[in-house]
């Protein structure tokens, strides 16, 4: 049975297997050092600084830190690309959960999301693609904890292999709710792949953070900010 917490893609283990003590650094032998110093004062100084940096205060093994896995310097987890973003929204957790859980609401702040249809326990997401085409993602809810989190995973027949989750946590100091959305997906191959890569991979973080900003605007102010001076551009 799938348990979200066991899923390595969502776990903060950015470093994989512990690094060996001597891996990834290079200690020059005396001959090399001599050559480096021979290149002149500037090069010598730079080489010395590098030598210092490479040999002093070296950390052999780095245990996992407390940052979310997706902020690690590695951004692929197996076949999956992962992107995510947290935003604090000045509204109660329950209200935000309820708004999100009515998937029909999501196109209000997700620009490319054209249509959401729920057929039994399957949700069909129609995403606008360039040249008037559409991509359909079919998902099933994996976990749904009232007021706390919703996670989903794509099923057979989906154009994209993807999974994601959104969590709602009380923000400290009465600041409302921390909403964290994470999406993992396998970039498909072929022409579709190229488009998806463009829409998701080149700018997945941009797309995601714009959507969360719009959600925040909508929930906090009741509208989505625009500089348009007229209703129709």
């Amino acid at each position, binding site marked *: 049975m799938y348990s979200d917490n066991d899923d390595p893609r969502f776990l903060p283990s950015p470093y994989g297997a512990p690094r060996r003590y001597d891996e990834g650094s290079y200690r020059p032998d005396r001959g090399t050092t001599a050559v480096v110093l021979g290149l002149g004062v500037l090069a010598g100084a730079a080489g010395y600084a590098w030598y210092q940096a490479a040999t002093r205060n070296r950390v052999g093994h780095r245990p996992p830190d407390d940052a979310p896995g997706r902020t690690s310097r590695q951004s692929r987890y197996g076949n999956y690309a992962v992107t995510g973003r947290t935003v*604090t929204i*000045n509204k109660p957790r329950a209200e935000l959960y309820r708004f999100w859980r009515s998937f029909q609401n999501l196109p209000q702040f997700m620009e490319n999301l054209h249509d959401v249809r729920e057929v039994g326990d399957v949700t069909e997401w129609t995403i606008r693609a360039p040249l008037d085409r559409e991509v359909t993602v079919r998902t099933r809810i994996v976990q749904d904890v009232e007021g706390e989190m919703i996670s989903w995973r794509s099923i057979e027949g989906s154009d994209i292999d993807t999974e994601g989750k959104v969590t709602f946590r009380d923000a400290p100091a009465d*600041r*409302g709710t921390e909403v964290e959305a994470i999406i993992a997906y396998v970039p498909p191959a072929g022409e579709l792949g190229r488009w998806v890569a463009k829409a998701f991979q080149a700018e997945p973080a*941009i797309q995601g*953070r*714009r*959507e969360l*900003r*719009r959600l*925040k*605007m909508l929930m*906090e*102010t*009741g*509208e*989505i*900010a*625009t*500089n*348009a*001076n*007229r*209703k129709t551009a």
Partner: protein
Amino acid sequence: MRALTWQGKHDVRVETMPDPEIVNPRDAIIKVTSTAICGSDLHLYDGVIPGVLAGDILGHEFMGEVVETGPKSTLKKGQRVVVPFTISCGKCFFCEQSLYSACDNSNPADKQDISEKLYGHAMSALFGYSHLTGGYPGGQAEYVRVPFSDVGPIVIPDGMDDDEVLFLSDILPTGWMAAENCDIKPGDTVAVWGCGPVGLFAVQSAFVMGAGKVIAIDEYPGRLALARKMGAEVIDFKQTNVLEALMEMSGGMGPDAVIDAVGMEAHGMAPDTILDNIKQTVGVGADSAHALREAIMAVRKGGRLSIPGVYGGFLDKFPLGALMEKGLQVRTGQTHVQRYTKDLLRRIGEGELDTTFMISHRLPLEEAARGYESFRFNQNEWTKVVLKPGTETI
């Protein structure tokens, strides 16, 4: 409608643009009766602020009459209002702390990316001030769409002239906050770089807050005379060594607090300015900060540094050592206008603050381009320009 549009460096034109409409529920439409040109507009005019597009309507100091309201606006048609230049939602974490110029929700989502990259966090929106801060059409126009009209605009009682209250939109709160950021103790000596409208209001505000002595610095006799009229002692930086003079005029201690009301286009012939200007010209986002450097050097140990002057990019030769070793406190930012409007309106009404003394010229909106040129290139005589849409002659 007619509106002043930016076309390029030193090229602004009044053109016919589509009238604005109510777009969001909290919007209102204002028919502008008075609108001013700001020193900040000169940064756009000089092309040193990125993200301004040809055809953008400028202007962020404006007031007028409410002519249309969205369903969630609390304004009523016919009311006279002054509109803060900062666009703020009133509902986010920052607005609730009255940090209005840090509002999270006014800058459209797709406009936030650049400033998030540039500054680490997305900036909020301002009227008529580049696409970094939202690309909202500005107030040097006959009509303006005002978002969050239930939070920003302040209603003006009958009997107060436009000229008396217009500057509540920006420069009066800006001068006031600049002085407030100095944390003035009774009898303090405060030095102010720049005797433009912001510096002049800072001088006046510093006295209201209890400063014993205010020293104002500029090069234009016309502007220095206004500062003197407000009670300041003045230094002409073209004839006097500013650092030496400030030490001597503050008993050898240095001023307790200093205000940089000049910003990113400081003049000066010192090598730092020349280098700064070259970099600004080749467009690497470098700020010219002669006044700021001088202020940091001048202020006494443990003193306060207030920076209302606008900066947008990066700075070389920043006297970081002086800042740290002297243990200075620094406060700055775009003004949290909405925090001050009510209190300042009262002070104007009671005659405590004089807001009209700096207006040197009033022009019809149609002559806005001439206003920009003169305000930019004849600063000695042109201290503040107010434009009047809908009038032919004044």
